[in-house]
């Protein structure tokens, strides 16, 4: 299992449970899109609390899902981002268009 889904009040939380690279993105992309098109959430929340690594494949994946949420008139958010993943998101400019919340202090 690479992803978990929680659906509540038209909020879809997608928890990714592995390092995000090209290999994993190829595996999860279609599943995430299926969940979105079936549930039609008003907001998709990507929970990155278990994502310890992400490379540029993650940037492409996030932008693709952002476009999809736009298309159905919904919003997108990424939560619990670790500092290394945050650097990549900032470099890509995604942080300017998508709401991001850092990892809660534990």
């Amino acid at each position: 299992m690479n992803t978990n889904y929680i659906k509540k009040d038209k909020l879809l939380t997608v928890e990714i449970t592995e390092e995000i690279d090209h290999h994993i993105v190829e595996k999860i992309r279609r599943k995430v899109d299926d969940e979105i098109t079936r549930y039609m959430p008003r907001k998709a929340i990507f929970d990155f609390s278990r994502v310890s690594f992400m490379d540029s494949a993650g940037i492409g994946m996030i932008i693709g899902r952002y476009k999809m949420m736009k298309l159905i008139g919904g919003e997108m958010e990424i939560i619990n981002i670790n500092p290394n993943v945050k650097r990549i998101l900032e470099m890509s400019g995604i942080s300017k268009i998508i709401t991001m919340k850092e990892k809660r202090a534990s």
Partner: protein
Amino acid sequence: MYDNEMKLEFLSKSSNEAFARITVAAFVSVLDPTIEELADIKTAVSEAVTNCIIHGYEDAEGIVKIKARIIKNTVEIEISDTGKGIENVELARKPLYTTKANLERSGMGFTIMESFMDEVDIDSVLGLGTKITMRKKIKKHLVDIEKEEIASLGGVC
């Protein structure tokens, strides 16, 4: 002579991307890098290896080679394929430039390699393949520097 050297060869399967970055990180760990330095190296390796697989071989089967060396506190990593090569290296380095936008690539791979490593050289010949050489100096921790200072003081006394 290098302080240490290793070579790795594997099939251009996407499942080997994690294997490659974890192996290089383990090799580099003798330099006692910080978590951030290790993340930089893992990310740069992941970018270069993924490029060999999706652009060099375009998902056909090929061999990806990695050679890593430690020279004092610097790590040098060569990642190469014998795939299709890059037509315009200057263009390829530009942020957001990608020839595979249809595959949801963002064109940020080289930009990430360049910002996470000290140097990134690209050697590519159309039809023959591509070799990326990256170098990064691992900074000494403050505690190590203090230890050395104490040791050198000991020599004086």
